[in-house]
């Protein structure tokens, strides 16, 4: 990339007059409810997914309180089954899948591209209302009659369970369309609306990650739609597909289900990796190490992610050859993830590392995601998986990846872009406190679960043998510490929205385009498409104490950047 011909944008001159921002652009309920502004839609998504997260989190605490004693404490086994089903379903379908792409992605994607909006603003609003509608439908179905199939809806249990499986799956179907529309919108936007100068390899890595995610959303989600339709057809019309009583095959359902739900794991983690790439680079004030390899590895993960669904079924009685092939493919997907971790470390090296709250979250991500990734090895290896499958080891593993990974990255991303989104600075000290408590609480919650798993504690148990009690109790204490950390994080952000000092245009010293817009951005983001250079060119970006933020000063171009 030594052939940059365009000078990086001159951002030293602020806008001549305050034109107002997207928050003050218009007012009234309808100006939000019918808005086509991607930023407002992003904020509405943020409100929605955070509400879902609160609900899922309360359910998680209920689970942990119940498991404080071997016989269970306050739930009947039936209620426990409903609570863990609801926890899983809410967290997966209403929180993690839409969290980063729909909330942060919607807000950031056009701004990072230097565009006024996404390609199809109406479709964007439509996908938000599909999400709201699907979420309400799903929650009502689950709450009213108590679904107890687990979030996986495994047949034939889900076919004979008394719960409202058809309604719940219909909710998933609607949510799926929301996801597809968002993905479609992002693909078209990135393909067609990049500004002059932004070649594919000058895109911020968050956009590479979002783009890879969008591909999975568009290609995999329809399979989930088909699966739940088949399930509905079987339950309502009695067509034998998955039910052995009707000559169906229950394992077929698992293939269908995981063909979506495994790539969905990458819908959850890829955007998180995108966030981490931005955070590591900006808060180390240094260009990203191995840009191309990170970009390629996002695409590689998206593609490999389609081929490894069988590792959820190693004990389901698939043919040996099939099982072995899936194991091999599973290991292939571990490599690009490892590469990313090394590249992030390389980014910090010789930079100027500032331990802001977002950076602490990013570092916590690397720590937790590394554990999550490494504990995937004994699950991908066939002989050990036969012991560990469906035990707490798996529960701990995917919480390390999904929660220690995606959620922590999401929080880091929110802290990082919060000044941009609401135009206010949060309290840095308490932001750092929240990151520290979340990190400690998370490990206390889930490290003991690895040991529970290797010692043979099966998952989805409402009661358990006395020898597992101490580890379960540690985990419960950890869950409350974790909850406290998240509460602090929430309070810090809410407090800042009201009392925070005004955010400068570029509080962290970022080089991507969202740091060129004022905080918060104006309604149209950019008056005309900006001319862009390298998103990780930090030369000349310096702190200006007068405005409390960073500006780019003219610098001597010695050439040979990269």
């Amino acid at each position, binding site marked *: 990339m030594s052939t940059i011909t365009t000078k990086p944008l001159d951002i030293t001159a602020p806008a001549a007059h305050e034109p107002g921002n997207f928050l003050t652009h218009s007012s009234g309920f309808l100006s939000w409810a019918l808005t086509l502004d991607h930023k407002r839609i992003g904020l509405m998504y943020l409100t929605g997914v955070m509400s879902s997260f609160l609900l899922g989190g309360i359910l998680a605490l209920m689970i942990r309180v119940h498991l404080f004693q071997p016989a269970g404490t306050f739930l009947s086994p039936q209620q426990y089954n409903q609570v863990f089903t609801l926890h899983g379903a809410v967290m997966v379908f209403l929180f993690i899948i839409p969290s980063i792409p729909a909330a942060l992605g919607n807000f950031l994607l056009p701004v990072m591209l230097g565009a006024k909006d996404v390609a199809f603003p109406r479709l964007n609003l439509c996908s938000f209302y599909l999400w709201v509608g699907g979420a309400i439908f799903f929650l009502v179905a689950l709450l009213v009659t108590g679904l107890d199939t687990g979030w996986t809806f495994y047949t034939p*249990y889900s076919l004979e369970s008394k719960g409202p499986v058809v309604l719940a799956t219909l909710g998933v179907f609607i949510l799926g369309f929301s996801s597809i529309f968002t993905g479609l919108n992002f693909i078209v936007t990135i393909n067609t609306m990049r500004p002059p100068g932004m070649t594919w390899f000058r895109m911020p890595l968050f956009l590479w990650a979002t783009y890879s995610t969008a591909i999975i959303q568009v290609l995999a989600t329809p399979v989930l739609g088909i699966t739940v339709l088949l399930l509905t057809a079987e339950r309502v019309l009695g067509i034998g597909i998955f039910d052995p009583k009707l000559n169906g095959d229950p394992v077929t359902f698992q293939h269908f289900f995981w063909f979506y739900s495994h790539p969905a794991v990458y819908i959850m983690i890829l955007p998180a990796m995108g966030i981490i790439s931005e955070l590591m680079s900006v808060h*180390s004030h240094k260009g990203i190490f191995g840009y191309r390899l990170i970009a390629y590895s996002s695409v590689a993960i998206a593609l490999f992610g389609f081929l490894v669904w069988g590792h959820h079924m190693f004990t389901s009685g698939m043919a040996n050859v099939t099982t072995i092939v899936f194991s091999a493919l599973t290991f292939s997907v571990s490599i690009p993830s490892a590469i990313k971790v090394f590249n992030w470390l390389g980014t910090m090296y010789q930079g100027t*590392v500032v331990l802001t709250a977002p950076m602490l979250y990013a570092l916590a991500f690397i720590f937790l995601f590394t554990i999550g990734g490494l504990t995937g090895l004994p699950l991908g290896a066939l002989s050990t998986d036969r012991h560990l499958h469906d035990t707490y080891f798996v529960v701990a593993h995917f919480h390390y990846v999904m929660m220690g990974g995606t959620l922590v990255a999401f929080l880091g991303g929110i802290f990082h872009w919060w000044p941009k989104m609401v135009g206010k600075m949060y309290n840095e000290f308490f932001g750092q406190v929240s990151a520290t408590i979340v990190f400690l609480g998370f490990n206390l919650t889930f490290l003991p679960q690895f040991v529970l798993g290797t010692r043979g504690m099966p998952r989805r148990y409402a009661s358990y043998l006395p020898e597992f009690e101490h580890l379960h109790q540690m985990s419960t204490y950890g869950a409350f510490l974790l909850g406290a950390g998240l509460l602090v994080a929430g309070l810090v952000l809410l407090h800042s929205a009201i009392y925070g000092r005004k955010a400068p245009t570029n509080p962290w010293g970022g080089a991507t385009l969202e740091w060129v817009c004022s905080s918060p951005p104006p309604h149209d983001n950019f008056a005309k498409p900006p001319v862009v250079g390298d998103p990780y060119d930090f030369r000349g970006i310096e702190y200006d104490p007068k405005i409390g933020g960073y500006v780019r000063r003219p610098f001597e171009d010695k050439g040979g950047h990269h």
Partner: protein
Amino acid sequence: MFLFADKPATFWFPEQASTFAKEVDWFYMAMLYISLFFFVLIVAAMVYSMIAFRGRPGYKGSVEALHNNWLEFWWTFIPCVIAVWIFARGVYGYLDQMTIPVDTNDVEVRAQKWAWSFTYPGGVTTNELHLVVDKPAKMIMRSDDVLHALFIPVFRVKSDIVPGRYTNMWFEPTLEGKYDLFCAEYCGDKHSVMHADVYVESQKTYDAWLAKEMLPPSDPWEWGKKQYEKSKGCIACHSIDGKKVVGPSFLDSWGKDVELATGGTVKFDENYLRESVLNPQAKARKGFETAALMPSYQGRLKEEEISALIEFMKNVKNNPNKKE
């Protein structure tokens, strides 16, 4: 490999009670140490950068992105090699676990919501798994209703049981003792208590146990109780202390008129019991509207066994044949 010394029970694992356990534990520990090595390396690099390159007055780090082909090649190549080794070693152990030897002791395993039953040569059926030490055993497993999974942690084995087909698994117990068997695939309300005891014993003890089980108890009430508690597993859903579990309790119901889901009543007598065991949905009790969860025992109960059950049902508390 003294690092991975074989201890009967370690921090990570329960006892090693099958021939598979050694390989699984060794392999797990090997992966653990490899992982720890890389984890420590990663965290050390992270902490080093956090300290050495921390933003502080008078320090300005480089802004130029680094790029190092040599480094990037090696940190891609080395993980690849390790991944290939882990994959291969996993397959090696797995194929051992999947290759069933010819000369095995066979046990028929039947999983239903929410009980296990094990049938031995000669037709003995109980809710306990009895195995002979140092003798390969094959489980021929089927499910009456939904997915279950048989999981014996001390043997390090687990296999799903899929309704509509037989699934086989094998293992060779190596350590005498009493162990736990769990259901590891979520199967509904009482999934967490779908547990069975596993007894690994010497050939002699096993033979004696089997011979004893073969003889029907001379006392029909005792025989009925044994069926209720062990061999037919009624206890999983029906209490005898009046508590509603899944199905109705058997306390004090004999001879009474019980209310039906369809309205009306029926006298709880020999014929009603017989019908309800063989065709549970025919006359479902009120409060248990469809009795959908109760499997039919048609073909699983001999006439004498039903008679014994009737003896037991007449008085679930005390054996009337036993003189105090």
